[in-house]
């Protein structure tokens, strides 16, 4: 059902826009006949953007679902843990220096990885890390990045500010190549699927998991590494889109229960669908103005989440 929802979201995203088209026109364009304008529109503008939105949403939701299990804390998500803060600092720094788009993506990726190493390295301390310690380290480092971001924004010339703000709120209008995101998303999903039951056991605490035959340390490192990679790629593709990683897995847990074998693939589908719909709204609601997609995910996600939480047992 979620897969159908995802496909539907993609379809809507491709047909709706400043030039609307009917399903027949879409079919003609896909088949290579009909108005060449539509073909151009679909294949070089809307489809890549919708695919990028879907992959980014999937990456963020999967990263959030993994981190929540790893830290056994419902608050965990790539943004709370400071990974996206590091990415934002990297991206803004290269924007401030006036570097090109490729450099912005590259330094966002570097910033995300740096932040990951920083959080995990410091949380390790002299003993082994505990979830609370990791979460606290992440929150404090995220706050630190926040200060650096504000500092950089106050330094930047007025003509660069809008671009920077859009990046901070998450923006897919520069996401022209969805391939990196898909190339990471699909293999990671395939790797995590057989880990589902082990993750179910890990959610009951490391000692209980070890007693039930899970090699806890390697699994924890693998999950943390994968979640960081997912976040870094998502942030590189679309800037820092908030809420998807936190809200989507929770909404699914409230509805579907807590079996990771179901939650992980469902998170990819629902996260992808949510971000695709949000991005379609972002570029059509106030057309020809484009809104940052992060605003829409928050506006859609917050009331839905609160409703589900209120209704749950």
């Amino acid at each position, binding site marked *: 059902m979620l897969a159908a929802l995802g496909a539907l979201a993609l379809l809507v995203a491709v047909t709706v826009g400043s030039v609307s088209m009917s399903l027949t026109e879409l079919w003609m364009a896909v088949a290579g006949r009909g108005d060449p304008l539509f073909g151009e529109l679909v294949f070089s503008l809307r489809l890549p953007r919708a695919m990028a939105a879907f992959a980014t949403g999937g990456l963020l939701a999967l990263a959030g679902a993994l981190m929540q299990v790893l830290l056994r804390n419902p608050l965990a998500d790539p943004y709370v843990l400071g990974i996206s803060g590091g990415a934002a600092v990297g991206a803004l720094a290269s924007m401030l220096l006036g570097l090109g788009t490729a450099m912005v993506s590259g330094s966002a990726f570097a910033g995300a990885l740096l932040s990951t190493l920083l959080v995990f390295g410091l949380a390790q301390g002299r003993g082994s890390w505990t979830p609370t310690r990791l979460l606290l380290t992440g929150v404090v480092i995220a706050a630190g990045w926040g200060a650096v971001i504000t500092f950089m924004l106050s330094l930047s010339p007025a003509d660069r500010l809008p671009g920077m703000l859009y990046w901070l709120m998450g923006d897919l209008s520069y996401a022209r190549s969805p391939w990196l995101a898909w190339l990471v998303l699909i293999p990671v999903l395939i790797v995590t699927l057989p880990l589902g039951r082990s993750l179910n056991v890990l959610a*009951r605490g490391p000692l*209980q998991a070890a007693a*039930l035959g899970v090699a806890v340390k390697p699994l924890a490192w693998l999950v943390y590494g994968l979640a960081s990679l997912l976040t870094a790629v998502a942030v590189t593709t679309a800037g820092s889109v908030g809420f998807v990683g936190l809200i989507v897995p929770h909404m699914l847990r409230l509805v579907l229960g*807590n079996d990771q074998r179901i939650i992980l693939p469902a998170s990819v589908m629902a996260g992808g669908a949510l971000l695709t719909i949000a991005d379609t709204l972002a570029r059509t609601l106030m057309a020809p103005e484009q809104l940052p997609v992060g605003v829409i995910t928050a506006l859609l996600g917050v009331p839905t989440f609160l409703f589900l939480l209120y209704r749950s047992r």
Partner: protein
Amino acid sequence: MAILEASNMVVDIPGRAAGQPFTARILPGQRWGVLGPNGAGKSTLLHTLAGLRPPRSGQVLLDGECLTQLRRRQLAQKLAVVFQERQDSFPATVQETVLIGRHPFLSPWQRESGSDLRLANQAMDALSLRLLSDRLVSTLSGGERQRVAIATALTQQPAIWLADEPTNHLDLHHQVAVMELLHRQAEQGAAVFMCLHDLNLAARWCDHLLLLYPDGELCFGPADTMLVPEALERLYDQKLSVGQINGAPVFVPG
């Protein structure tokens, strides 16, 4: 059937000088009870025997193989641990929780089969949890959660039980029910090793006792030779009176 063996094992308790090495074989059919005051290191001893923390020196062997040589999965197929503390951060039903006892026996892609479900149902019946099977564990009382933990271990069908205070939070009826269950497990060839607070439960249900003193000193042997009032008084630093009920010793403070 499997044999757990401690060989010159010294439990690693931070900030404590090396205790006395522990060398013993826990054989199929035996029921061991560990007695000691709070903080003597009973749980740490149990976790060390389960391979969940390394001993300061010496080693623990399962069927002659050092635990560090075994994969956790192989170990979990023979040995189950009932913990004193449990974390339920995410909601799960009683049935789901009991069913994870099958985890060590399933390959990554395999889903639980009908026979796994049957084992889980039998375990829930054995601990009278059947009516609670769809309840969320987080909504249960302390004693009910304790029974869920024991049912999970039972689903694991272990040859060796390591149980940390298995009667914690249980009412009198369920204390006896759990002890009878562990007794039956031992009769069917399992080895049972448990930490207990209740001297009288230990006297009634264990055939071997290990007394663990706070300074790391320990002594162990068949239950009837260990139930010496003077030794127990020194263990708990508490005067004891001994009575006889139905031919078995009963200890009360005072």
